[in-house]
């Protein structure tokens, strides 16, 4: 049963919105805390700088394409929240179809168009370079990400998130699918163009796709990136770490603990890794990650045939 059917449509939608914003603030706060070592005050700093962006005057450029620019900018947080619709919140997802994992993947794919538009819109060379870098990076991480998601569906014999969580009653998928787990988290950082995959917004091109954004536009894009990272951590907790399974504590608390742990892991590792240039990621993605994820899928397929997951 979906959360919309259990709690009513609007409470369920509000739950996704609230959880999404909370995850975004969590990611941004942990990021700030790891970067600056300010600890708990980082949360307040994130909210303060977010509010400051809300009141900041919007800059524009010479002869932009305002329609496509605004559309791209607004799409990023919307897609991040939509991807959260298939992530279990309190054991239920807002949407539940027989292709939940494909939905999550599709939202991330539409992000390609959104980020390219953010780069194209302002009619500025650095922003456009950032947009192109995002597409190059996308061609490198997309297939490994798809194979990682397929591996999960294979092990669970279902593409429905709640059934994937239920299928991990005996053993968490991370035990038999470590490669898929790592690739999923790395791809999350890549489609949020963050950490070692931040080249589309790199300092060498003056901030890339972010370079011409100001005020509420910048807030929307930064928020979208943070919500995408948070949603991916929550999704990884559901797909690989058994979701809300755990002893003593109630299920949602376990889901929250695992998600927070994954966010901290992502940020600590991501912020300690050097930036990888997109031309390097292409070769790593195609020569290492695609064969590795294919082998991972093969191992899981053999395990399925032997009745390991039954």
């Amino acid at each position: 049963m979906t959360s919309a059917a259990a709690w009513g449509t609007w409470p369920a939608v509000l739950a996704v919105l609230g959880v999404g914003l909370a995850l975004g603030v969590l990611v941004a706060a942990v990021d700030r805390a790891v970067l600056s070592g300010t600890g708990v005050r980082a949360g307040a700093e994130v909210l303060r700088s977010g509010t400051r962006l809300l009141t900041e005057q919007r800059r524009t450029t010479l002869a932009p394409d305002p329609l496509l620019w605004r559309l791209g900018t607004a799409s990023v947080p919307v897609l991040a929240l939509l991807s959260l619709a298939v992530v279990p919140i309190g054991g239920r997802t807002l949407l539940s179809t027989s292709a939940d994992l494909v939905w999550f993947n599709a939202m991330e794919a539409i992000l390609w168009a959104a980020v390219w538009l953010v780069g194209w819109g302002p009619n500025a060379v650095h922003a456009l370079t950032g947009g192109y870098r995002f597409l190059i990076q996308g061609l490198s991480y997309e297939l490994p990400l798809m194979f990682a998601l397929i591996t999960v569906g294979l092990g669970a014999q279902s593409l429905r998130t709640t059934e994937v969580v239920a299928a991990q009653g005996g053993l968490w998928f991370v035990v038999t699918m470590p490669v898929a787990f790592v690739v999923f988290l790395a791809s999350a950082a890549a489609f949020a163009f963050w950490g070692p995959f931040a080249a589309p917004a790199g300092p060498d091109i003056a901030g890339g796709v972010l370079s011409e954004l100001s005020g509420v536009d910048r807030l929307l894009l930064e928020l979208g990136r943070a919500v995408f990272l948070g949603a991916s951590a929550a999704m990884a907790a559901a797909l690989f770490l058994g979701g809300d399974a755990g002893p003593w504590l109630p299920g949602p608390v376990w889901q929250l603990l695992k998600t927070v742990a994954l966010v901290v892991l992502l940020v600590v590792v991501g912020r300690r890794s050097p930036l990888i240039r997109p031309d390097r990621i292409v070769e790593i993605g195609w020569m290492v990650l695609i064969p590795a994820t294919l082998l991972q899928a093969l191992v899981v397929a053999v395990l399925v045939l032997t009745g390991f997951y039954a």
Partner: protein
Amino acid sequence: MLTDVSGWTVAAVIALGGLSVATGIVVFVVDSMARATFALLASFLAVASILVALELPYLAFVTALMMTIEMAIMAVFMVMFMMNPAGLMPMTMVHNPRGSAVLGAGVFTVLTVGIWTIEWPTRRGEPPADSTVQLGEAIMGSHMLVMLVIGVALFATIIAGTVLATARGRYDRFGADLDAAAPDDPVPGGLPR
């Protein structure tokens, strides 16, 4: 035929179909390659939404996924090859307007006449509880041969296209005798050589 689905489904399909046609027309009206590309993407996404309304979630999400990636890559090449891509001067997507109008009207007439005069078969059996499972079983079962042939043909096309497009071959990378220890590539790549 139409009685099998609810009124809401019919209304949604009509509205989304109209939207996909309208955004399809926009492709030929706008004067910027980026706008034309993303109007086409909007049209594809409307078609994906029709598949959602018809309760085919897997096909719908895969359509949205594939078409978006395709349009994003296409935008790069269209902007690269098109004259005046940004629309700073008037640009048009329409070529040979008279011929294409005749062709379009002819195809529309044939299709419309065909759709409304053909004797459609009545449905045998029931819609499946889970269309994704049914699709998977069809692809991996009764239609496996044709899917494999299509897959191999597409893959061969990709490889052939890449081979034709690239100016560099293995002799450029590994020398005339193919005995170089490390390939000589203009882009260093990410793995140790």
